[in-house]
């Protein structure tokens, strides 16, 4: 067995063309992509955000309880007792205060500056570009939003976010406010179901969730992971192609006339593929980090996690190599076989998000992606990169091991009997 593994490792390492493709090409591509997309999609840009927001409060917050009670009786067909109870319950909630607290929260205050202005001043400053946008809290916002929340009807008035031109800052701010409103509505709904007599408005997570709980990832990190995984995936084809050469040159026949077990040939291929795939990804990640500082300031735990995920993926690639090798041994035309393997790998690469970031795909494609070994590995890497939670890796790890077992069984089943190789 050791001889087969050593032989395959030597053959790969002596093949300069393969080495360039396996090690140099991904680094070059990562470098080029890094240059091309630098600052375009980079999530680092949140560090440079400096949003100036005008808050225009036109809400009449006096006699909210009374107004709400009246509205509930007149428009909501509640009797007086019910209306009184609801209004009393609603008096604990103040959506405007919750919004103000949110906008001045620690999470936002580093990059959002709030200016309390009247509407005319706010419009003026927005038009002059001194302020990015204005958030208008319309008259009766509190009463209307509480009424809507307790009756389940759509609110008659809503917050208005106005901007002069669409910028990244404005887009981000708009998303964050929307997130806040969604969360607020959710909290009201939950309160109704629970029947609590106190509305506790929890600070929304929404758009600031990533800042608070996990690390963000950059495009260069994404491309490094995607390319490392992609090129390791192609290793399974390289191994199968080398099998084709061994058949063509009758080396395979020479091996068969020794008394060694034919399966050793296949198992040797799998083990060497596993070692090569793991080494390849590790070297690509390592070099990318050394050259481009892709993963700055990461802990040893992070790197250990990456090593484990890489090992699991290398196992999956070894399984794929077993299937491809067995198919190569059955095919009359090894060039046609290589063509088929390349098509399969390309489909896996596209579905797995190795060419285009997976989160730009529609939902159904993202779900399909997680059934490909490369897509699953990429999502594990991204998860690990952001949250470093071991628990989130357990299920995908089992799936990768399952993929390896399945492929190995298929490879063994398809492996030709003596004299069956073409």
């Amino acid at each position, binding site marked *: 067995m*050791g*001889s*087969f593994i*050593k*032989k395959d490792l*030597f*053959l790969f390492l*002596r*093949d300069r063309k393969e080495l360039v493709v396996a090690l140099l090409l991904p680094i070059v591509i990562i470098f080029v992509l890094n240059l091309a997309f630098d600052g375009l999609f980079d999530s680092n840009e949140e560090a440079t955000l400096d949003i100036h927001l005008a808050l225009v409060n036109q809400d009449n917050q006096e006699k909210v309880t009374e107004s709400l009670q009246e509205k509930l009786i007149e428009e909501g067909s509640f009797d007086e007792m019910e209306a009184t109870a609801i209004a009393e319950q609603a008096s604990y909630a103040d959506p405007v205060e919750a919004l103000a607290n949110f906008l001045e929260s620690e999470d936002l205050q580093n990059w959002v500056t709030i200016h309390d202005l009247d509407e005319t001043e706010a419009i003026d400053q927005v038009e002059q570009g001194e302020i990015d946008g204005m958030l208008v809290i319309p008259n009766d916002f509190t009463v209307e939003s509480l009424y809507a929340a307790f009756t389940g009807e759509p609110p008659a008035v809503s917050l208005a976010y106005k901007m002069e031109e669409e910028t990244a800052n404005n887009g981000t701010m708009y998303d964050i406010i929307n997130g806040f409103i969604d969360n607020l509505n959710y909290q009201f709904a939950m309160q109704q179901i629970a029947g609590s007599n106190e509305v506790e408005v929890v600070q929304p997570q929404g758009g600031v969730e990533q800042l608070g709980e996990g690390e963000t990832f950059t495009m260069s990190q994404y491309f490094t992971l995607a390319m490392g995984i992609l090129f390791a995936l192609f290793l399974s084809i390289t191994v199968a192609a080398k099998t084709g050469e061994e058949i063509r*040159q*009758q*080396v395979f*026949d*020479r*091996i*068969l*006339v*020794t*008394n*060694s077990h034919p399966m*050793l040939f296949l198992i040797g291929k799998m083990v060497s593929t596993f070692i090569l795939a793991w080494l390849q990804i590790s070297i690509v990640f390592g070099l990318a980090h050394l050259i481009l500082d892709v993963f700055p300031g990461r802990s040893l735990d992070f790197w250990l996690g990456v090593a484990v995920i890489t090992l699991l993926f290398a196992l999956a690639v070894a399984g794929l190599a077993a299937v491809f090798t067995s198919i190569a041994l059955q095919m009359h035309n090894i060039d046609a076989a290589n063509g088929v393997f390349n098509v399969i790998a390309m489909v896996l690469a596209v579905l797995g998000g190795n060419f285009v970031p997976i989160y730009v795909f529609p939902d159904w494609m993202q779900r399909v992606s997680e059934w490909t070994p490369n897509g699953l590995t990429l999502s594990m890497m991204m998860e690990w990169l952001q949250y470093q939670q071991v628990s989130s890796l357990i299920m995908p790890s089992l799936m990768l091991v399952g993929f390896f077992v399945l492929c190995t069984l298929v490879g063994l089943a398809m492996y030709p009997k*003596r*004299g069956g190789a073409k």
Partner: protein
Amino acid sequence: MLETINVSKSFKGKKAVQDVNLYLDRGESVGLLGPNGAGKSTTISMISTLIKPTSGEIKLNGVNTVNKPADIRRVLGVVPQELALYQELSAYENLKFFGSIYKLKGKELENSIQHALEIVGLKDRQKDLVKTFSGGMKRRVNIAAALLHKPQILILDEPTVGIDPQSRSHILETVRSLNETDGTTILYTSHYMEEVEQLCDRVYIMDHGEVIAAGSKAELLSILSSEDTIKLELSMIDELFVEKIKKLEGVRKVETASSQLKVIAKKGSNLISELVYLADSHQIQLLNFQTESPSLEDVFLHLTGRTLRD
């Protein structure tokens, strides 16, 4: 020691080899002669257990090995027609790999490698990558890889195809030495008649998947013992002149090739004076002539109506 009894092989209903009977005694050197497509490689593949015969038996020391291939593999060394080597590995690494899958280890493996390299004369170049070798050197490594486990029977399938005369001579000398000095039984296939003539005690001639003649060289040549071959080199060849030769008494066949004429006639026909006279009467200058004893090539031609390289 090794025999095939009525061995046949069909591929998709088409018979590639039919009822082949071979016998190799211990220490013998046997040739398997035939043109491309005669069925030699298929026969060898069956003996070396790469493919199973459709019918028939392959016996090693009287025991059928068709369903027990491990026995024959232990004593068999096979030199395939192709260069069955890893080009990216050195000669030493190739031999180490093949030696280790023959389950040789440690010192025994190292000694076997060095011995095999010595036999093929490549000890000095053992660390060089095979891809840097000449065609002849690659062929020699190809042979060395089959010698590592010291096989009792060595099968060589066209081991000198496409190499320079010096390497060819080296390989032939190696094979002779293995047979005569080490006592290795040799089954040598080739379509180079002169190699088989030079190396083998007995010859099987195959054509269209069948053995069409077998025996020692003398036995095979005796098939043509009733004929004389006269080769003439002429200044020109005239059709009328050729026709007149064909009509001479005792002439069985006349072959022409550029300015050469080959006349096969009944033994003792004494045609030389008549040929000289005919050439003179057609004003054709006779540049050279020689009488020849028949070769295995002639035997093959006689049996099949075509040459080995057709």
